[in-house]
């Protein structure tokens, strides 16, 4: 693991736990889960202290969240200085597909209206949202407004 990031580390941890569960049984795997939890929570508590110490130094905080690794770790521990709505809007803005943020409902599902674009944007939008706001529970894409029908005058002479 040369390029460490929270996503890759998370995937590797899950793969290793699955391997341990298959090889040494559920008891060993449960202990390993507890071990990972213990370490993640320790570093999380450290990050929480760092965020508290930085406090209102917005310039410093902006530098921190500009770093993808630091930002991903802040998201793991719910320590990101921007709220859910701001992060989703920012992520949608970066995508540039014109998707519109409608809100987050009480169950944590993000509602978005897609603008125009090809079909693949659905998946791209969903991924961008879950990465920017992992605390949300899902994405609901509202149907886009039907394109307006262009009414023109029939060319003269046509039937």
């Amino acid at each position, binding site marked *: 693991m040369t390029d460490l990031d929270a*996503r890759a580390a998370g995937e590797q941890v899950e793969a290793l736990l699955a391997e341990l569960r298959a090889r040494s049984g559920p008891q060993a795997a449960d202990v390993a889960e*507890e071990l990972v939890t213990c370490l*993640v929570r320790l570093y999380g508590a450290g990050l929480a202290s760092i965020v508290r110490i930085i406090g209102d130094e917005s310039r410093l905080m902006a530098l921190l969240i500009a770093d993808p690794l630091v930002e991903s770790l802040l998201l793991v521990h719910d320590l990101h200085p921007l709220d859910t709505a701001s992060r989703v809007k920012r992520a949608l803005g970066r995508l540039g597909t014109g998707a519109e943020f409608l809100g987050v409902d009480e169950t944590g599902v993000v509602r978005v209206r897609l603008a125009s674009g090809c079909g693949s944007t659905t998946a791209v939008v969903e*991924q961008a949202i879950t990465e920017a706001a992992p605390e949300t529970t899902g994405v609901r894409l509202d149907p886009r407004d039907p394109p307006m029908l262009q009414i023109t005058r029939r060319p003269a002479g046509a039937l």
Partner: protein
Amino acid sequence: MTAGLRRFAAPPPPRAAPEEKCELCGEQVGDGHAHLVDPQQRSIACACRACALLFTRPGGRYQTVPDRVRHDRETPLTEAEWAELAVPVGIAFFFINSALGRVVAGYPSPAGVTECELDLAAWDRLAAAHPLLGALTPDVEAILVVRGQPYAPDSQSAHVYLIPIDTCYSLAGALRLNWHGFDGGTEVRQILNDLLTDLRKRARQI
């Protein structure tokens, strides 16, 4: 997707107390469950009642540890006889290891159980004079001897009981966990005292 690590950042659910299960069939077992000894592997396994009943006869791979406790009021172990065994400590248990064909002495200590092989001739002489020693079932029963200060201060002679071998190992475990200082300390004396009280109640004359 940072969801992978997020699940470890949440406070962990309280850990359920480990359930003790029968190591043969997986059935849940209670506190006072039976144990099976595998004499070849020198291992001991928890067993439910049904599995324990399967291995009460000798000859199989496993043997159920019986729960009888015996003592012999009529022929107590004398100091001279004890000295002949050349056991250097005040708490010891003896059992017949059928795989080795020998008597093994175990001494509980803060480092676990120290074992040594005993002078068989001395043991045989002693067993001839003491029916309690002669009654020992190989691998699954042991003779527990507790003697001298500070472990048995109330008694002139040693406490000698024929007991299930799993009791020896649970005693050894309890002593290892609670041993403080040079002679084990008050907790160790309390544990021994409780065990001896319990054995005194359960013991029948051989």
